[in-house]
């Protein structure tokens, strides 16, 4: 008899915590389903704003859905460059970036971090202009941190964040360029 009571007593905290976790998960699922489309929309707005900033003379951009590539065109309809979304895995989570390249498919036009969750004061410096401006005019094929023989200076104390950006940019952009060329896109 006493044994049974003890058993129930020991089981109670487990049941309670399970119940609380279930309740909080339900609440979060509801909140997430409401906010997710809005967050996506905000992200897109920031992306478009940065895209317009990067390609000053942009008049038109075409989005290839299946490749997730933006082909940026000027007023005359000529291609001035391409833009890609690049997701790198940083120290604190995904680093979501916009990378633009010139129409030669090699020179980097610019890099802009859209969202990240790196450590403030260290990895979060990837959002600072001096870091992002280093990428301008560099050849994508030779992109590397200066410790690896390239000419991108890493952020001191934030090697993981710095190399996450460089590696993800190089890998993703080269892969997308190859896909673009194989599909024969202008």
């Amino acid at each position: 008899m006493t044994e049974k009571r003890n058993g129930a007593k020991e089981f109670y905290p487990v049941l309670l915590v399970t119940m609380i976790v279930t309740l909080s998960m339900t609440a979060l699922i509801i909140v997430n389903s409401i906010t997710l489309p809005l967050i996506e929309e905000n992200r897109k707005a920031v992306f478009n704003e940065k895209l317009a900033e990067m390609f000053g003379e942009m008049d038109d951009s075409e989005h290839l859905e299946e490749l997730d590539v933006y082909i940026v065109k000027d007023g005359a309809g000529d291609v001035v460059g391409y833009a890609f979304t690049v997701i790198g895995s940083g120290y604190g989570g995904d680093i979501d970036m916009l990378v633009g390249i010139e129409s030669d498919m090699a020179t980097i036009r610019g890099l802009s971090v859209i969202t990240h969750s790196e450590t403030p004061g260290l990895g979060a410096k990837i959002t600072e202009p001096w870091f992002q401006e280093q990428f301008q005019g560099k050849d994508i094929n030779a992109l590397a941190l200066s410790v690896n023989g390239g000419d991108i200076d890493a952020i001191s104390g934030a090697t993981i964040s710095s190399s996450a950006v460089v590696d993800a940019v190089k890998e993703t952009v080269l892969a997308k360029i190859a896909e673009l060329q194989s599909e024969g896109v202008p």
Partner: protein
Amino acid sequence: MGRVLETFINGITKSNPTFILLLGLCPTLAVSTSLDNAIGMTAAVMFVLIASNITVSIIKKFVPSMVRIPTFIVIIATFVTITDLSMQAYLPSLSQSLGIFVPLIVVNCIILGRAEAFASKNSVKDSFADALGIGLGFGVAIFIVSFIRQLLGTGEMSLFSWVLFKVPGLSDNPMAIFILPMGAFLVIAFLLAMFRYMGVMEGE
């Protein structure tokens, strides 16, 4: 009623989380670069504090002390995530400038501290008053620090991209050190020393 009011006022003065209890200094130091951040952070902390204090106070009878802390953390984390997602959806620019400090409210010792030290022992009404007082106390503190840092560090006062006033001379050559992390330590240290000297905020 007197007790509720006293609990509320204590949160701002006698047990001010920042200046007396010295709790939750990390967000205070980090996001107090502008008044906008201070207001946004206060709103987020207040919401989480009130919601978690009330919830903890309601369920305190059912929670065995063995699983107390995990339960509180789950409750706090839920409210913080709700706050974070709503901010990202409705106030994207504020969410961008507060960055990681919104999700970090989960481990803010003010919130867990009040759940553990107050809400788990007191009635819902008192816990609400305590959360409101402590939340406002945190707000007042971060507001004062931000005001000084923004004033000296940028030379102008602005609120939600609406410039209130500029200090002649200072706005051309602002003392940028106050915007940097070091400025936060300096300002908080001087404020603490000043409050102690004046005896305005004598601890218990």
